[in-house]
């Protein structure tokens, strides 16, 4: 399939949605862009045809199919996911899992030719029996406490089944690891931005990051050129947590695991923006993904794990002097 003439993005206010809109406008000024979200984002490019859609509504699939057909959408990026959990777990489930189901129905009805799904390597789950590098074929075991992760594992299962029933549609699933960079922000980067970082006493897991630009480039290539398949989107190299903190001049605060789990549970319950439930298991066990397939498809990433981390750290350091 050639470059799509009309491209739709769900989740315009998410990081991937917002930034990809800009990148696609620059790369393909002639393509028609259709934006979908609950509300119109501030400062939206006037050339974008915006539609306010609530994906969780019972009849959202029909309405969305109508819209996609009217706009002649050929490629769709589905990025309408929470970047951090909210207190209302049911609402998150409706939006993420049921919303994705509606998007899939609408894509089938409107004859969309290409679908790109924003996923995450967090879906593999931190497990003591993970191999050091998880390939794309590894089962997605998620985390029992992290409900956003659970929702998105369900979404991946839905997409895999849907893709088998619609073999003529190019389906790309991109699984980035933790994203680092000057502008990306979520509960994870907020955790790492603290000067004193609580860690698990006696554990020093290997972590990997991907730089926001490398991540967005993979999405852009998948959306505009098409790379059907499932890919981990990660940076090269891994680093232990304590080494990362030391290079950033931050101080680890090692806390015994049972105590930290108990302490961490309180802010997670009220969803105050602190690390979400289950987060500390991701600092305990391995869940590093193998990026070779992604490197072959989207090119060598410009930033290694260490460079992505340094880019994040130096941008946060400057922020203090603004």
């Amino acid at each position, binding site marked *: 399939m050639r470059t799509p003439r009309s491209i739709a993005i769900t989740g315009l206010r998410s990081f991937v949605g917002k930034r990809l809109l800009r990148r696609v406008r620059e790369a393909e000024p002639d393509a028609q862009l259709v934006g979908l979200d609950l509300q119109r984002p501030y400062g939206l490019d006037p050339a974008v045809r915006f539609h306010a859609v609530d994906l969780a509504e019972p009849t959202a699939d029909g309405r969305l199919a109508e819209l996609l057909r009217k706009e002649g959408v050929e490629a769709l990026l589905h990025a309408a996911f929470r970047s951090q959990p909210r207190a209302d777990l049911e609402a998150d489930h409706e939006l993420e899992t049921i919303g994705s189901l509606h998007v899939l129905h609408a894509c089938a009805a409107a004859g969309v030719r290409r679908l790109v799904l924003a996923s995450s390597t967090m879906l593999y789950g931190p497990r003591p029996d993970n191999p050091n590098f998880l390939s794309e074929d590894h089962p997605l075991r998620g985390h029992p406490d992290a409900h956003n992760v659970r929702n998105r594992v369900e979404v991946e299962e839905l997409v895999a089944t849907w893709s088998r029933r619609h073999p003529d549609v190019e389906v790309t699933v991109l699984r980035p690891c933790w994203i680092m960079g000057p502008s990306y922000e979520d509960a994870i980067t907020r955790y790492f931005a603290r000067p004193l970082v609580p860690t698990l006493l*006696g554990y020093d897991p290997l972590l990997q990051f991907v730089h926001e630009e490398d991540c967005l480039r993979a999405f852009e290539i998948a959306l505009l050129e098409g790379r059907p398949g499932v890919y981990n989107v990660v940076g090269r190299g891994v680093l232990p947590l304590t080494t990362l903190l030391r290079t950033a001049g931050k101080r680890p605060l090692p806390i015994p695991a049972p105590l930290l789990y108990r302490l961490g549970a309180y802010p997670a319950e009220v969803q105050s923006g602190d690390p979400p439930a289950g987060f500390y298991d991701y600092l305990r066990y391995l869940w590093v993904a193998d990026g070779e397939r992604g490197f072959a498809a989207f090119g060598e990433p410009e930033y290694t794990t260490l460079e992505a981390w340094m880019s994040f750290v130096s941008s946060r350091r400057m922020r203090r002097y603004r």
Partner: protein
Amino acid sequence: MAAGDAGNGDEGERDALASALQGLRRELRGRLEAAESAVTDRFGEPDLFEIFERLRRAAGTFGMEERSAEVDEFGLDPISTARARRLLEWLCSSWWRVDVAGIEDVPRDEPVLFVANHSGLLPYDGLMIAHVVERETGRRPRFLVADWLVTLPFAQPWLARVGGVRACRENAHRLLARGHSVIAFPEGSKGAAKVFADRYRLQRFGRGGVIRVAIEAGVPIVPVSVVGAEEAHPILFKLHTAARSVGLPFLPVTPTFPWLGPLGLLPLPSKWRLRFGAPVATDALGADAAADEVLVSRMTEELRGTIQSMLDADRRSREGVFSG
């Protein structure tokens, strides 16, 4: 005027008070200076910022000075490894007085899969084989570690930094494909956890996975026998119920543990012997042979027999458990 009179009276009192305060201040300053010069004479000029900065750095890098800024993809840290090398060399030459035999036959310019008998709870045997191979050939092999140790607090970070990798097929494949030699213990925890009465009796070699990995990677297999490690941590019997409450597979009872507390975890100074057998080439078989179950199980049994006979020969020829 009454107010004026009162004012004059006040002024007189104030002057007296002021001169008294002046005197007190002079006195205090004199004494303080004397005290301060006594301090600076002994410790030099104190700089609060300097002290604070030093404390801050000490707190922030506690236990971290000896780490590299970058590690390889399995977490091996060159500085930690170099530091551990001193301890391992001492354990190897002074504590266990390790005799090495047959290292000349180990291929030097290609990755190798070392297959050894397993004993003792802690991976001393893996550490020693890795150390000896590195000392003799200049290339450090990685040793595979059981799951429960990989997730044990404090053990996990250290093992990863000196070259321990979780034992699983994917990891062994990746290591061999990247040109690293690998030390595997196909007995698994059945071997590590056997009681003293069963010492040097090789357990089942898993399901032949170790042979399959070698065939698929086309690397030679080097059988290794470790004699002496069984006596470093002789397990008299095992407690299962008590262990489950602390999250371990079982709790060993050795002559020293748990009687001596953490001290009991120190290994006994038995006399060790490492023997490297003749390499078994697998590259001529082709990768398809890995699917031949009968061939794989025959090769597994042959390898087990080789290691068992090496063990038996070395046990017969040693003078005593601790002497030599």
